[in-house]
C-alpha cells in the first residue's frame, strides 16, 4: 500500500494527482469467509480492521447495502468524549479515547482528532451537584473532569447569554478537556483502507436478504449478490438492526428513531470546544470550515426515514438561541437525519446471541461515533474469541432481563421520551 505522507503528496503533484492508488478495492464476493461483518459503517469497518490486526483473521468480508460511510458515520456531529458516570461506560469509552489519540498515526490517515474539550452546562444548583458527582466518578476512572463555576464558563464561552434576563442562567458546568471532535468521514475511510490492505473484502451495494441458520448455528448469509457461507457473522448496522433481527425472528430492546442535525453558514472562529445546553437538548461545536454544527432531540417517533421534520429543528434551535443569541443572525446551510438504534437504557449492546456464531453490535443511540474505535476493538475480540472482553462484559443483551441496566441518565426505559 502506498503510504500517505508529505513526500507522496509532492510526488503525486507532478502527475496532477492522477496516479494515486485506489484506497480500497471493489471485489466480487467470494463464496465463503471466516467472518462476515454486516454493515460498512464506522463500527463495521473498525471491527474488520481489528479482526485483521489484533486477531490475524483476514478472510473477512464487509457487506454493505449502500456505500461505506454513508450512514451514521457520515451523519453525526463528530463529538468524541468519555464523560460517563457508570464504570462500565466510562472504562469502555476511556479505552476508546486512547485509541483515538493514536488513530491518525495508526491508520496513516489524518482523522483530524482534535481534543478541544466539551462543556456540559448546568443551570441550577441541583444540576451542579449532579455534575460534581459525575465528575468525581469520572476522575475515579482516570478521566479528566473539571467542575467550572459561572465565571470560569464565562471566560471560555463569553458569547453565551450571561445577562440577567435569561430563563435558564448558567450556574457553571462540567468540562472534559480531553474530549473533542474528529473528521468523521476520514475515520471510515482510514479504517477501510487499512482493512482492505490486510485482505478484508469490502463489498458495497450488496443487501443482506436472509440468514442460513442450521441447528442453532450460523452457516452463512443470503444477499442480493448471492449466498455467502460464513463461520461467523457480526451484525453492525445501527438503525437497521431491527430489520435484520426480524429476519432472524429475534426481538430486541431497541427502537429505531430519526435524529436530525444541522450546520450554519461558515463564520470566523468563535467557539473552540463543544458545548451542551443543560436546560434543553442542544449541543454545538464549530467545524474547521467555520460552520456551527448543531444537534439535539430525536423527532420522537419511530422512523427509518433518514430525514426528519421541521418542528424538531425549530425546537432544538430555540434552545440554541436561548444559550447563544448570536445564532439568530446565522443562516442555516443544511439539515439532515440519521436513524438511531435506541436501546431501552441508552447504552450499547456488544454481545454474542443465542445463535452460535452470530454476534450483535447495536443500541448506540445518539452516541455511536465517539465509540467507533473501541466498539470495533471489543466487537472484534468478541467475534474472534467467541467471548466478550472485560470492556464489554456489562454491555450484554441479557442485562434487560437480569436488571443490570446501564441507564446513565437514570431515566428508565424510553429515555428519548422521558
Amino acid at each position, binding site marked *: 500500500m502506498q503510504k500517505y505522507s508529505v513526500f507522496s503528496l509532492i510526488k503525486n503533484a507532478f502527475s496532477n494527482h492522477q496516479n494515486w492508488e485506489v484506497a480500497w478495492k471493489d471485489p466480487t464476493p467470494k463464496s465463503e469467509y471466516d467472518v462476515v461483518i454486516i454493515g460498512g459503517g464506522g463500527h463495521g469497518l473498525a471491527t474488520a480492521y481489528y479482526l485483521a490486526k489484533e486477531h490475524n483473521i483476514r478472510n473477512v468480508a464487509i457487506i454493505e447495502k449502500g456505500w461505506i460511510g454513508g450512514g451514521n458515520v457520515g451523519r453525526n456531529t463528530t463529538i468524541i468524549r468519555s464523560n460517563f458516570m457508570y464504570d462500565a461506560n466510562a472504562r469502555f469509552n476511556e479505552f476508546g479515547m486512547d485509541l483515538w489519540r493514536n488513530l491518525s498515526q495508526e491508520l496513516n490517515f489524518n482523522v483530524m482528532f482534535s481534543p478541544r474539550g466539551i462543556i456540559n452546562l448546568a443551570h441550577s444548583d441541583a444540576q451542579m451537584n449532579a455534575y460534581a458527582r459525575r465528575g468525581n466518578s469520572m476522575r475515579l476512572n482516570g478521566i479528566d473532569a473539571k467542575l467550572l463555576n459561572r465565571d470560569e464558563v464565562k471566560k471560555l464561552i463569553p458569547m453565551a447569554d450571561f445577562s440577567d434576563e435569561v430563563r435558564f442562567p448558567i450556574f457553571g458546568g462540567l468540562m472534559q478537556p480531553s474530549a473533542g471532535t474528529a473528521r468523521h468521514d476520514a475515520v471510515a475511510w482510514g479504517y477501510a483502507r487499512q482493512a482492505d490492505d490486510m485482505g478484508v473484502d469490502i463489498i458495497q451495494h450488496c443487501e443482506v436478504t436472509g440468514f442460513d441458520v442450521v441447528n442453532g448455528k450460523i452457516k452463512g448469509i443470503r444477499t442480493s449478490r448471492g449466498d455467502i457461507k460464513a463461520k461467523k457473522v457480526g451484525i453492525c448496522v445501527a438503525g437497521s438492526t431491527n430489520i435484520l433481527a426480524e429476519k432472524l425472528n429475534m*426481538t430486541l430492546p431497541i427502537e429505531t428513531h430519526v435524529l436530525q442535525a444541522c450546520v450554519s453558514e461558515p463564520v470566523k472562529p468563535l467557539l473552540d470546544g463543544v458545548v451542551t445546553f443543560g436546560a434543553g437538548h442542544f449541543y454545538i461545536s464549530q467545524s474547521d470550515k467555520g460552520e456551527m454544527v448543531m444537534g439535539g432531540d430525536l423527532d*420522537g417517533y419511530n422512523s*427509518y426515514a433518514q430525514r426528519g421534520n421541521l418542528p424538531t429543528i425549530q425546537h432544538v434551535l430555540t434552545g440554541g438561541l436561548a444559550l447563544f443569541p448570536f445564532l439568530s443572525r446565522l443562516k442555516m446551510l443544511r439539515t439532515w437525519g440519521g436513524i438511531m438504534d435506541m436501546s431501552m437504557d441508552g447504552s450499547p449492546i456488544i454481545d454474542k446471541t443465542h445463535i452460535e456464531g452470530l454476534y450483535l453490535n447495536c443500541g448506540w443511540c445518539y452516541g455511536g461515533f465517539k465509540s467507533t474505535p473501541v466498539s470495533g476493538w471489543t466487537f472484534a475480540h468478541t467475534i474472534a474469541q467467541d467471548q466478550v472482553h472485560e470492556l464489554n462484559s456489562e454491555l450484554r443483551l441479557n442485562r*434487560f432481563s437480569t436488571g443490570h441496566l446501564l441507564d446513565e441518565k437514570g431515566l428508565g426505559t424510553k429515555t428519548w421520551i422521558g
Partner: protein
Amino acid sequence: MLYIKCPYCGLRAQKEFSYGGDATVKRPNINEEVSSEDWDNFVYMRKSPRGKHIELWQHIAGCRQWIKVQRDTATHEIFQTAKVTEEIR
C-alpha cells in the same frame, strides 16, 4: 410537519401531539402471575418495523385524548387514525 387526524378534533399539526410508542404492545393482565419473559417483552422488547406501524399518540395540546395512528415508518405517511379503544386493521 406531520398532520394527524385526531378522531375527536379533526386534522391537526404534529406539534399538538406527543408520541407514546408501539400500540400493539399489551400489558400483562393485572392480578395474574407474570413470567419474567412476558414482563421483559412488555417493558423492553420492540419489533420497531420498517413500514406500517400502529402507534399511540396523545393530543396533548388539544383534547388530551390518547389515540391510535397507523403510520409508515419509512415514508411517514399516515394511513389511519382511531380512538384508543378501537382496532386498526
